[in-house]
């Protein structure tokens, strides 16, 4: 009798079990693999088509205004960029926030919900490695979202023949701001996401925290300041309340951006900027430490 496999001239051989004799690359390689996989997952790569929509929509949404701005600057033959790099990040800060709220739970809650975490911990990478890889992935993903429009703006500035040196310095200011945003956001976002295996709760909690604290910070600031510009310095301590105003005010003060006008948020004085920086680093480290603690008994 002729079977199908005979007709095709092919036979499946059972070659039995082959032991693996190749290299085992160990803990650091495993951590790096987890980082790459998590970074890809943050943009929906390696997952279903549906999960790519939101991250790329946000990435595009973040970059699109920079292109529009460039087009206007080019056609109207302006002498300089209509908006500073760091100011751009502050103006469109809601998009990276949505990105964080949507994707941090993708990195953390999914593993918790489907009980994949014990599988990681039964392999060479440790709990610390796991949290570090996830943090690095979230940080990198946010940095991509934040830095892409800045780089587009800078490229445009070169095309429009704006002063290169000035633009380069301000691009660096903008990138520092992007790094600070990404650090603080990742730390807070991942901590919240690690607390709940439910993705929806994570999204709502992160978004809620960022929005509500920002509103609180602005209200406190406005109430304290009143109409007295002299009290502005004191009342700007209120910017410590919210992660987004914290970074915004710190960066503006640090690099003395803008003309000191009321449109931008400033940390109170040089000493204030130092306090802001310490608070930012403490929050980042604290969030990371608490996330680690969360995984101690998993």
């Amino acid at each position: 009798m002729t079977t199908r496999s005979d007709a095709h001239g092919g036979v499946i051989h059972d070659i039995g079990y082959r032991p693996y004799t190749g290299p085992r690359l160990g803990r650091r390689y495993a951590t790096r693999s987890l980082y790459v996989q998590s970074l890809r997952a943050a943009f929906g790569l390696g997952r279903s088509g549906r999960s790519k929509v939101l991250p790329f929509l946000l990435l595009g949404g973040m970059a699109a205004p920079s292109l529009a701005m460039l087009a206007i600057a080019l056609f109207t033959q302006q002498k300089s960029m209509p908006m500073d790099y760091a100011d751009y990040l502050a103006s469109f800060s809601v998009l990276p926030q949505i990105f964080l709220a949507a994707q941090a739970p993708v990195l953390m809650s999914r593993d918790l919900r489907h009980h994949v975490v014990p599988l990681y911990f039964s392999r060479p990478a440790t709990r610390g490695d796991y949290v570090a890889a996830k943090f690095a992935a979230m940080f990198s993903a946010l940095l991509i979202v934040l830095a892409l429009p800045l780089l587009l703006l800078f490229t445009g500035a070169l095309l429009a023949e704006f002063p290169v040196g000035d633009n380069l310095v301000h691009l660096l200011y903008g990138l520092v701001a992007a790094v600070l945003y990404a650090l603080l956001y990742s730390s807070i976002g991942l901590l919240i996401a690690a607390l709940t295996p439910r993705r929806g709760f994570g999204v709502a909690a992160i978004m809620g925290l960022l929005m509500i604290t920002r509103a609180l910070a602005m209200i406190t600031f406005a109430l304290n300041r009143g109409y007295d510009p002299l009290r502005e310095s004191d009342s700007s301590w209120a910017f410590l309340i919210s992660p987004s105003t914290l970074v915004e005010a710190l960066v503006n003060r640090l690099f003395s951006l803008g003309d000191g006008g009321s449109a931008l948020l400033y940390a109170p004085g040089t000493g204030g900027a130092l306090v802001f920086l310490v608070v930012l680093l403490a929050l980042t480290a604290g969030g990371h430490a608490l996330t680690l603690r969360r995984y101690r008994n998993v």
Partner: protein
Amino acid sequence: MTVSTVIKTDGLTKRFSRVTALDRLTVEVESGVVGLVGANGAGKSTLIKILLGLSPATEGTGQVLGLDIATQGPAIRERVGYMPEHDCLPPDVSATEFVVHMARMSGLPASAARERTADTLRHVGLYEERYRPMGGYSTGMKQRVKLAQALVHDPQLVLLDEPTNGLDPVGRDEMLGLIRRVHADFGISVLVTTHLLGELERTCDHLVVIDGGKLLRSSSTASFTGTTQLLAVEVTDHPVDRSFDADAVLTERLTAAGLTVRADGSRILLVEIAGEETYDTVRDTVDDLGLGLVRLEQRRHRVAEIFSTRADEDAEDADHEHDHEHGHGHDAHRAVPAGGEQA
């Protein structure tokens, strides 16, 4: 590597704030298929966590594959595979993607991870369906993927936590067959935990029984199940004479024929098998008495029997559950020889 001692613990103790999960456990396990038996909460999962170096022992020491569990955790975890008891598969990922990722997490380079994943999934019996998202898999398929991710990096030892949980009898038999193959064909030592005794005596070379964190017994399966073979015999009443005590007369006749007979329960007689001719003797004696032969089946001492005396002593809730499980394993086991021996 020629380490015949796969797992060795010495006075291993794990105390949580309220309970003592492991109590001075000293056990040595050779390569092979080893069953870790105990009721729910006996300390099996705690022991596995400690062996993986994930949870420090309160007291005592232990070695896995000759590596110290307290200090060489990462090295152990590179050489050991672990299949957890609970569900651990993300539903929106395919088995291939998932197992490749887990292989890389064990330190395999990307190309080797793909190759080993294809091999391993084939060995556990997953074919075309391995490209589909795992959310749509049956329990049996999920258990196979879980086993595959534990084997994909070709470990020297796999720790399987309740691998037959939730499987129907056919799926359970297939999983047990697979576990035997893991050792026989793949050369990987296996530590398998369960609270069902019946299935372990068919699969394991060695059994370690723990209860309340203490070691009850550790020895080869053969010594548990005993060497004497028994024959269970059940006959009908005499068709005409109502007052005829069939069991008593049969016992008398068989004893006269030189066999050792004792009653087991109301109607079953257990006859020690002296040799092949014992079957003939029983058959001829029953025929001679004009009785009907209802049951003639081979029976071994069962692992379950080591618990039966102990279970009578303490009447805790945990033990009731335990007894229930015995009955289950018992029945499943009986069905196999009964079909073969009755003729």
